[in-house]
């Protein structure tokens, strides 16, 4: 077991109102450079609808070479081909989208409409009509998920449902962009798994762009270098959430770390059936309460505050404990680390439009069996087409909703509806204890800033690197065993005296030293 930490995010889609505040905040700070006008490190898409980017070479298009494939020998290789073939195709990278598959820079597209001469590079007198924007009015025909589901779906879905999907770089555990980069400029940070481009190492080979299944790698044609979402690394390092998260009006983003087993990444990414990828990814995420895991993490050099952050991580709660967060398009085998709680509201709306009580638990659960389309669409998007996984998550969300169902029916009162006590029958129906259901309800509906963002600051440069050589660290032959702490500086527990404690995330089982300090 090689314990590594990974920064991750969960987005609770029921709370997204599609306001683009995240996109604008990100744009102004992170991709305002000349040459990146077309790049949206964060975008919000209307689904079903046209994704960004969208076109024959964009992910989901017929000429896309995104992601990994599993060879018949059970090994992983990039969809573009083996390493040599990949190099021989560098002179004209296959599957590289052109700028019109993103969106022409708004300035160029809009200038003819607001007066003044059109820039020459748009072809002279009048530029093209603005056709679409990163989150356009739903454009069903361009939706690759719908194309995959077939024609009847496209016709029918217009009447059924719609939701917003905010997207950033997935900071995958097994990133295809990193694997495709010929210069080794793209890398995963050992400490927190964030995928970054080294601007001094990038040579502009642009292989990363078509390799990314999420369309989140960009080439800046002015500098000739790749650019991407950095998960606001400069904020994360000092313990603050990303800009998209910080500014989110719906408060739908949760940020935190998980511990995972670095030795089993390849094994997880190469399971045979794409529908098993989700479980494989959950399996390599380690239980931070397991004493063995904690010991291994300490031996690997993690500070106590990182281990505690992993224990109280909202990501761990939603992904592993409650299993209500799902990865986006796991079938590309990249093991993405931006997770989504799929939206229940569109399903509720569909049920309510038939006149039934859309918030009643039993009605909703029965509806999941009958409603093909919303569940199929969500399954194609979040679970490689496995309906049962999505239906299971929706049942838990319906159970959460049943705690406040009906209380909003009297109209807005200006107060948050008070949650009822969890009905043991409902809780049992979704395999949770009533207390757990209450906790999930709290986390999904009332979590405040400190609960949504549990981000340990980066250690000082030069201190023992987590995931580095374990021989030199605590527990290794070159370091100090757990019993030898007193002679070799403060123990991990002593180091965190006085650090903050998240009371709302406390399960009541352990004895945090902040609440129960040692007597002196």
């Amino acid at each position: 077991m090689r314990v590594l930490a990974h920064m991750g995010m969960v987005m609770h889609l029921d709370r997204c109102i599609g306001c683009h505040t995240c996109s604008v905040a990100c744009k102004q700070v992170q991709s305002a450079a000349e040459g990146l006008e077309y790049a949206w490190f964060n975008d919000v898409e209307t689904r079903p609808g046209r994704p960004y980017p969208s076109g024959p070479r964009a992910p989901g298009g017929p000429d896309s070479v995104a992601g990994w494939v599993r060879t018949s020998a059970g090994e992983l290789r990039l969809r573009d081909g083996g390493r040599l073939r990949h190099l021989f195709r560098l002179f004209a990278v296959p599957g590289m989208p052109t700028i019109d598959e993103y969106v022409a820079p708004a300035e160029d597209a809009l200038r003819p409409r607001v007066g003044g001469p059109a820039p020459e590079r748009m072809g002279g007198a009048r530029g093209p009509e603005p056709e679409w924007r990163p989150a356009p009015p739903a454009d069903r025909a361009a939706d690759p998920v719908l194309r995959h589901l077939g024609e009847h779906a496209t016709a029918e879905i217009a009447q059924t449902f719609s939701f917003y999907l905010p997207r950033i770089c997935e900071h995958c555990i097994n990133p295809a962009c990193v694997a495709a980069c010929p210069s080794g400029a793209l890398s995963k940070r050992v400490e927190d798994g964030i995928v970054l481009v080294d601007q001094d190492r990038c040579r502009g080979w642009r292989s990363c762009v078509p390799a990314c299944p999420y369309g989140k790698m960009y080439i800046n044609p002015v500098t000739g270098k790749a650019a991407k979402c950095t998960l606001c690394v400069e904020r994360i390092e000092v313990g603050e959430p990303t800009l998209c998260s910080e500014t989110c009006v719906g408060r739908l983003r949760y940020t935190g770390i998980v511990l995972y087993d670095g030795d089993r990444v390849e094994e997880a990414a190469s399971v045979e059936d794409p529908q098993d990828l989700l479980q494989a990814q959950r399996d390599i995420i380690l239980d931070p309460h397991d004493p063995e895991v904690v010991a291994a993490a300490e031996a690997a050099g993690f500070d106590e505050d990182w281990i505690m952050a992993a224990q109280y991580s909202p990501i761990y709660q939603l992904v592993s404990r409650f299993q209500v967060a799902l990865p986006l398009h796991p079938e590309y085998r990249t093991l993405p680390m931006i997770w989504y709680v799929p939206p229940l509201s569109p399903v509720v709306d569909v049920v309510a439009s038939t006149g039934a009580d859309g918030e009643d638990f039993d009605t909703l659960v029965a509806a999941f069996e009958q409603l093909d389309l919303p569940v199929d669409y969500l399954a194609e998007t979040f679970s490689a087409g496995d309906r049962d996984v999505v239906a299971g998550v929706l049942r838990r969300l319906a159970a959460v909703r049943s705690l406040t169902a009906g209380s909003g029916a009297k109209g807005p009162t200006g107060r948050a509806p008070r949650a009822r006590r969890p009905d043991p029958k409902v809780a049992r129906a979704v395999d949770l204890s009533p207390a757990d259901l209450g906790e999930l309800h709290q986390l999904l509906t009332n979590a405040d800033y400190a609960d949504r963002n549990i981000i340990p600051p980066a250690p000082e440069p030069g201190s023992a690197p987590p995931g580095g050589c374990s021989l030199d660290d605590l527990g290794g032959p070159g370091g100090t065993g757990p019993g030898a702490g007193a002679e070799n500086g403060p123990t991990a527990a002593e180091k965190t005296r006085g650090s903050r404690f998240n009371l709302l995330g406390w399960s009541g089982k352990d004895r945090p030293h902040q609440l129960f300090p040692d007597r002196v």
Partner: protein
Amino acid sequence: MTSTLDALLWGVLPYVTIAAFVIGLFWRYRYDKFGWTTRSSQLYENRLLRWGSPMFHFGLILVILGHLVGLLIPKSWTEAVGIPEAAYHFVATWMGSFGALLVVAGLIILIVRRRTTGPVFSATTRMDKTMYVFLAASILIGSWATVETQILAGDHGYDYRETISPWFRSIFVLQPEPALMAGVPLAFKLHIIAAELLFILWPFTRLVHAFSAPVPYVFRPYVVYRSRDAAVQSRESRPGWDPSGRPKN
């Protein structure tokens, strides 16, 4: 007897070229890694580039290999292993012509693309245009030299391995022999001068990407992990630029 002009062209200019090329490359790599890139315009246009770029680059690889063999391997060596002059000449001429055809066709496609595609033309710097002049000149004059002195010259053609190749090697052993170049056909002379000017310009253009051919990619693991420490500490810290450290809780 070597004239002053000959001495300058064939005894001095090569060393000026080597100095500018080596020092220029070192300087660029040391101080402008951020500018060291292909600056590809594939984002703007794909249809023409899909044909032009591979033709141009694969043709160039063929042509460069041909130049290396022709210039570096002495005639006596190939004859020692039993390759007759006629056979050598035949293979070199036709492989070279095939390579040249690919390069010229690719270059024409790429230049047409660069001029006619609006966004690509807008993204062309003055340095790019200057570089294109010398690049095109070297390639076109070189192709002309092959056609004129090899293909149209009957069975044997001009044997550059008696004159140009020994002169080329004499530069690198620091015993330049400008006299060898005296009787060389004009096309070759112009080709060499154009190429030397291109090499002088090389370190300051996007052509530097040729030295970043990502061969190590073939041998490396797919996913690269890098420590934050390495990134933070890779530069010497300068006064006033100490690391900010972690916030106190």
